[in-house]
């Protein structure tokens, strides 16, 4: 009983091969192109990856290729394939719509530069790497945009890998009870954002905003926190926030400017208070930044690596020193870095990164919410901090750790939950809103992308013609519709998502889905097909 679905050899391949190009005799050709492994996120990340990989490979197999499906658990995928260099042949996977990825550096540099940690496609192109390093240092936006676009063009010409779709997130909420639930597009509705969290307004006396979610928050110590924007950014203010237009707007800081390429002068908002009533001053900000630089908490390493320290200017102003010029600092670090109350931390003698702030009773920030209760794996409650400059118009927010989609759905129907943003598949959210009057659904198109990676250091992927053919045979449309149930958008060309607005190079010509064209490309490059319709390398 061999499992037939494991190998996807499209039965269509043969007749197409026969009719289009006839088939060459084996002696005219090289070796058969071996089976290709497709790694993708296993079902623990949801069935979209499986479905997408299946749909995409179904089309690719029309080029005479055979595929082996290789589901990989998320963590294994990340450690082995994304940063571990363990990509065998191909991978179909997604990268999330984190708020700081509105900056092009992640897309251009982190995923593509020589030696970048997340360059799992093993592509190394020196001139390109030079360009993407440089763009990051250009504090002048115009210059930076121009260089970023140039890099995109270069990338497009080489085509080492490509995005297939952009993810559409969604949120569903109880519109009987809540209004002004705004979309955080193009960022997924991560907690800690203004939209929809802080803008939501209650329509009834139930003034607690219940978020029906999957898992627990694991810590209230921001130095130990893993997420980019996590829940605890509700408690601890950041200097800036990214809004739904992709702009970085003032938050705890009212203004910032590069006084030098490596020095940013930051002015704090006036009259801010911590939850215990103490005033927020530049001392607290400077203390926090210097502490972070000193301790180098591993969880924060990606964003603080370029920080050199901070120094106070006056009560509300201070300078942040960078190690190297970094234009992405504004979008990636300011909405991330937080302010700790110096008076609760300065005298702490233990390991600050490991401090159990809940047990110590020092979950004290200056954010729009105050910590109230945490029942492990069950519920978190944050109370509105009325003195905050952007306090929401309701009394508090709850995060229900329900652990499974079905319960999230039930919570939304029964009214226990007011909003659901993730975990529940977007299609299911949309279905829910169609079925229940009190529920409203909003799509959140994002820059999160499903990428098709090729092992650029291994044949046949070393051959530009082969890559081109694979690109042409990539059915973005099918992946979006069948893999993502329509809740994805076929991605544009180049590494940078279209949603990044000005950073996106819209001049790159769209490559249409074209199997016949792809076969022609292969044929012209000397490839051929045997009598079984299998693709063979050109004869050497």
């Amino acid at each position, binding site marked *: 009983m061999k499992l037939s679905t494991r190998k996807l050899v499209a039965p269509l391949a043969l007749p197409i091969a026969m009719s289009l190009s006839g088939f060459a005799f084996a002696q005219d050709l090289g070796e058969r192109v071996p089976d290709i492994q497709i790694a993708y996120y296993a079902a623990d990340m949801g069935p979209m990856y499986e479905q997408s990989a299946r749909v995409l490979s179904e089309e690719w197999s029309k080029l005479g290729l055979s595929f082996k499906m290789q589901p990989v658990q998320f963590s294994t995928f990340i450690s082995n394939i994304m940063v571990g260099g363990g990509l065998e042949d191909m991978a179909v996977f997604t990268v999330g719509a984190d708020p700081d990825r509105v900056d092009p550096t992640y897309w251009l540099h982190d995923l593509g530069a020589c030696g970048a940690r997340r360059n799992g496609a093993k592509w190394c192109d020196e001139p390109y790497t030079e360009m993407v390093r440089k763009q990051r240092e250009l504090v002048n936006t115009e210059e930076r945009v121009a260089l970023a676009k140039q890099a995109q063009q270069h990338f497009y010409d080489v085509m080492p890998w490509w995005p297939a779709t952009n993810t559409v997130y969604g949120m569903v909420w109880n519109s009987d009870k809540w209004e002004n639930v705004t979309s955080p597009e193009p960022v997924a509705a991560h907690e800690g954002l203004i939209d929809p969290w802080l803008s939501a307004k209650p329509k009834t006396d139930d003034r607690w905003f219940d978020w029906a979610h999957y898992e627990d928050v694991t810590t209230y110590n921001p130095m130990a926190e893993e997420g980019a924007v996590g829940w605890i950014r509700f408690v601890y203010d950041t200097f800036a926030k990214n809004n739904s237009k992709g702009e970085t707007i003032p938050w705890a800081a009212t203004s910032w400017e590069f006084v030098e390429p490596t020095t940013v002068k930051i002015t704090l908002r006036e009259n801010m208070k911590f939850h215990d009533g103490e005033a927020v001053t530049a001392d607290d900000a400077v203390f926090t930044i210097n502490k972070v630089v000193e301790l180098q908490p*591993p969880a924060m390493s990606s964003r603080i690596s370029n920080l050199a320290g901070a120094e106070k200017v006056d009560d509300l102003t201070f300078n942040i020193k960078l190690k190297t010029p970094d234009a992405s600092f504004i979008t990636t670090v300011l909405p991330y870095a937080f302010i700790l109350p110096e008076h609760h931390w300065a005298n702490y003698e233990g390991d600050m990164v490991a401090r159990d702030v809940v047990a110590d009773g020092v979950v004290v920030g200056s954010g729009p919410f105050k910590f109230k209760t945490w029942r*492990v794996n069950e519920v978190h409650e944050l109370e509105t901090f009325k003195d905050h400059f952007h306090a929401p118009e309701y009394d508090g927010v709850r995060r229900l750790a*329900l652990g499974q989609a079905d319960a999230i759905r039930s919570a939304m129907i029964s009214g226990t939950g007011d909003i659901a943003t993730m975990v529940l598949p977007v299609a299911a959210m949309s279905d829910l809103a169609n079925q229940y009057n009190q529920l409203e659904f909003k799509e959140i198109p994002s820059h999160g992308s499903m990428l098709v990676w090729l092992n650029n250091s291994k044949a046949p992927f070393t051959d530009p013609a082969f890559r081109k053919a694979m690109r042409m045979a990539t059915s973005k449309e099918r992946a979006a519709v069948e893999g993502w149930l329509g809740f994805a958008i076929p991605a544009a060309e180049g590494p940078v998502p279209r949603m990044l607005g000005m950073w996106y190079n819209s001049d790159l010509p769209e490559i249409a889905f074209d199997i016949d064209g792809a076969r022609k490309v292969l044929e012209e490059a000397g490839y051929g097909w045997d009598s079984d319709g299998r693709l063979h390398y050109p004869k050497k």
Partner: protein
Amino acid sequence: MRAYILRRLAQSVLVVWAVTTIMFFMFRVMPADPTAMLLERGLSEQAREKLLQEWGLTGTLWDQYIAYLANILQGDFGNSFLYRKPVWDVLTPLIINTLWIAVPGLLLGAALGAVLGTAVGWARRGGKLERMGIFLATVIRGVPNFVIGIALLTIFSSTLGWFPEFGMGDPGDRTGFARYFTLEFLHHLALPLIAVIIYFMPENLLLMRSGVVENRTEDYIELVRAKGVPQSRVAWHAARNSMLPLITWLFPALAETIAGIVVIEIVFSWPGVGRELVFAVSRQDYPLAQAAFFLLAVMIVLANLAADLVYGKLDPRVVYK
């Protein structure tokens, strides 16, 4: 007696050590990387090294193992990678939550199974009650526990709306031990508890029934009948004797079922230790998963020990050697 208990205890310690060792190496050879989540967010190589060191994941496997054992002997199971605090601090409330559905569920399941099993075992051989009893028990035994959970939720929550659909309580600020004694808690407890009972009962019923059937033809039952005591009393004698083999099965089964309750916890969104174990495994939180696993294994070992001792209490014929 004392020598026997000591010997059994020594054996138990050996078994626990072996299981701990197996688990340790299993988690260490996992291909997954506990830093993966951070890596995706751009954890630097030095920071990763630092983290691994902090988590006791550097050095040779053997060194790690020795350190791990030494810590366990001091009752230190390490800090949860994710929660950043001692695993027991994380697990303790979850264990209590699990016990809330497990203990009453299993006890009621066992009691109900014993009573119904006696009834079916005492029914006329080949009669309707016996046949229906056996058939239903066998079929219910074949229902996977998540199907039980889904069915209960669909019928009693979604359709009839009698019980809440998830969780252990309404969202709110009730914390501490007092919350366990609220009507709201009991309301939430009902369905998962029923699920555990339904899950655990049939096997008890069938075992009890076999025991009663075996015992009812024994000579002593005839004498009890001849004494003219009420039928229920006669059945009690058969049941009382059938309980002996049931006990040896029951205790390990209790422990095993507690371990199996993870599925029920997930279906009902019950914040228990089993659900946390699944989360911990999927998030590579080794210390947490290892401690949860250790706990379950110890429970099974202790249950076996308890079964031995209780058997001795119930059966006057047993002499400990």
